[in-house]
């Protein structure tokens, strides 16, 4: 087993664990840290699946996109609570 395969296995196991924890958590805002772990693991594994120069940009775009999404969800949730 090469280091790449070992790293891919670790990333994939962490992604599955984080995905299950996202569903089991009841509080909506506390789901976001687990979603962040899942996106870390997925961004790492798409680099390990296909090593190519464009993959760096793909991983960075995916990670920044999902971070923006979490930011918007959390901000809208906080604003909605405060206006009530």
């Amino acid at each position, binding site marked *: 087993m090469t280091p790449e395969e070992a790293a891919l296995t670790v*990333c994939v196991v962490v992604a599955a664990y*984080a995905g299950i924890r996202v569903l089991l958590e009841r509080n909506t805002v506390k789901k976001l840290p687990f979603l*962040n772990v899942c996106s870390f693991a997925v*961004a*790492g594994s798409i680099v390990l699946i296909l*090593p190519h120069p464009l993959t*760096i940009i793909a991983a960075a775009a995916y990670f920044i996109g999902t971070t923006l999404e979490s930011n918007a969800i959390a901000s809208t949730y906080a604003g909605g609570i405060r206006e009530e």
Partner: protein
Amino acid sequence: MPADPLHILIAAAVSWVNFIAIDLFFRLPERGGVSGASEIGRQIEAGGGALPGGYMMGNIVSSPDASAGTLLAACGVFIAGVPGGLLTALLVYLGNRVCHDPGYAGTTGCITATFIVYGFSLIGISPASFIAGMVIAILTIQGISSVHASRLLATLWGWRRA
């Protein structure tokens, strides 16, 4: 070259120390940067955690900081060597600007992590091990138990302020 579990553990420890040190140096636990980060901090405190640790976890979630910089720098060095790492530093800076963040922590973490990962690749620890190590490091902060992780971060923040 066969894989060695010890290499992944060493990489996890190094990247944990790197991103925690840089996040504490740039005062992330002081306050929530955006309203979403403050909301995450308050909810974690309501669940039994500590408020500064909750703010830092909220900041990690809602803008790419040193942890994202370390992961993407490891990816860049794995594919294209040191120039790839510096390219990801530029991308992390752009992402920080999009998220209404000054962007010092992410860019600094990315540049230091680039040289750390390159240095370790010279003595035989592959950059792929650093990708897995960073995933394990972020798992210990955000993924196991938000109460204990926020208390640990609050303790470290107390040392930083003292």
